[in-house]
């Protein structure tokens, strides 16, 4: 790192850096990440703890830049045109103390005909009063493909508020696959807001899975505008809530072009005194577009329960198995 405006990574190999990095890697592992990937030179990596960039490693074709902002980091990720990134880019964001704020402003530029996968693990293992805000602007070039898999771990206290916001533009022939998961530990408060503008022949797939308990609050808003001919999209939401948790899912798909096809699929399982809302909104402005939706909200399907009970599981065990399979499968 020679240019302080490109990166403000902590001085590597200082005791403070080593200790912070080790702690972050432990948190990363709790969220399901593999710390060994941060020691592999062929893998592009970025690790941010609070407002400190601990690791920022670019590789040919994948350029990572960061600079400090108040309470966080501004990150730029550029994948060069035509680059087929062999190994997933590993991203790690976390707040290790029990209190703190992390603001991430991220800009992703995926060049035409490029292909890249991101594995992001966000860990807040000790959160009692933590706020994490991620504002991402993503531009996927023509015939480019971006897969973004994000796993969160929020500890057991529920004292975290997470605000992932993404504005995405997908050019002609581009593809976006996004998987967002909070399936271990508590959720705390999640307010997710994704907007996608999809061009001609594009493919968009958004999968969101969360398991809320106690007084967790899950709010998911996903909006896809199928603006180009033959643009296709799928939103798939799988949420389970128990105790007094609340979930609200609003998915909006708009079909605005010939042969645009969108589908919204939401399953929410409710137990105890939890509450689930689902609002699929369909808008079609072109006679040759089609948008569909399906939702199953409420208790576990009785036939599924009885099938597992006929193998010797009791009802609670059967419900747990169904939820775990749906959420983590």
């Amino acid at each position: 790192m020679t240019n302080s405006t490109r990166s403000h990574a902590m001085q590597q190999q200082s005791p403070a850096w080593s200790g912070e990095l080790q702690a972050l890697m432990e948190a990363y592992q709790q969220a399901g990440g593999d710390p060994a990937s941060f020691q592999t030179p062929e893998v592009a990596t970025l690790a941010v703890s609070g407002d400190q960039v601990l690791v920022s490693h670019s590789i040919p074709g994948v350029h990572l830049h960061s600079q400090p902002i108040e309470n966080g980091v501004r990150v730029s990720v550029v994948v060069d045109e035509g680059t087929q990134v062999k190994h997933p880019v590993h991203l790690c964001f976390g707040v290790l103390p029990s209190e703190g704020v992390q603001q991430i402003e991220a800009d992703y530029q995926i060049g035409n005909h490029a292909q890249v996968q991101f594995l992001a693990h966000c860990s807040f293992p000790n959160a009692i009063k933590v706020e994490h805000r991620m504002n991402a602007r993503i531009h996927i070039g023509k015939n480019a493909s971006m897969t973004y898999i994000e796993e969160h771990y929020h500890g057991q206290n529920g004292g975290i508020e997470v605000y992932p916001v993404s504005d995405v533009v997908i050019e002609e022939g581009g593809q976006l696959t996004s998987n967002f998961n909070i399936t271990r530990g508590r959720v705390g408060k999640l307010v997710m807001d994704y907007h996608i503008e999809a061009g001609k022949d594009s493919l968009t797939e958004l999968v969101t899975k969360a398991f809320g308990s106690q007084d967790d609050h899950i709010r998911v808003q996903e909006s896809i505008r199928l603006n180009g001919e033959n643009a296709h999209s799928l939103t798939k939401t799988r949420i389970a809530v128990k105790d007094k948790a609340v979930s609200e899912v609003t998915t909006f798909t708009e079909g605005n072009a010939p042969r645009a096809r969108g589908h919204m699929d939401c399953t929410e399982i409710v137990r105890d005194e939890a509450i689930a809302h689902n609002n699929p909104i369909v808008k079609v402005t072109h006679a040759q577009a089609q948008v569909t939706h399906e939702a199953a909200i409420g208790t576990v399907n009785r036939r599924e329960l009885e099938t597992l009970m006929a193998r010797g599981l009791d009802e609670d065990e059967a419900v747990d198995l169904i939820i775990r399979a749906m959420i983590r499968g």
Partner: protein
Amino acid sequence: MEQPFLIVENLSLQKGNRTILNRINLAFYPGKIHALLGLNGSGKSSLAYTLMGCEGYTPTSGRILLDGKDITYTSITERARLGISLAWQEPVRFEGLPVGKYVGLGAGEPNREKVLAALEAVSLPPKSYGYRAVDQTLSGGERKRVELAALFAMRPRFAILDEPDSGIDALSIKEIARLIRQMANQSSSVLLITHRPELVEIADSASLMCFGSIIFSGSPQEATEYYRGRCEPHLSVLGSQPWQSPSDN
């Protein structure tokens, strides 16, 4: 003379004004296959669900005795733990649940060898199918095989197979027949609900159901002949089952 371990005694089930099961009497022996035949709507699956203890199938009268103990009002879970299980005619899908895990659910621990053997027995190579999910990516026939594998791995004392042949291609019926025979050889008693002659002929005994009643019990051949001689002509000529009043249509 061997005694039956499971006895169904004067079992009846009413739903509203409809008689679903009417004074059913059956006895089941270890290692024996009993076929249950009958037209669609005759009550075969309803009997299966009643024996399994499913919700909505609590008998109106009569008893189910297992080793002399009355289990008529026992829960599904309890019955499964006593050795009764059911392979559903239309198996459900479980999003995200691996085939290997599903097959091994009732097989106890450790169950890896049982799961592998069960998947091989239904011609689903474990390496290809073990980690796939029991979801819509499996064809109907594949899900059917997974269902049978689950019961094969479980080795229940009493296995209720509700049309295990439906959705299975004709060439594979002999495999299914072999599997069922193997289950019986492993001392499972099998209640085999089927329309297929190839499966009826592997049974040790058979009963014919009609309009919620058992109207005939005997050898598989006798039951088949009775069905062909009386039920089929009645249906084709009168459009109803023999014991059904025309005004019920």
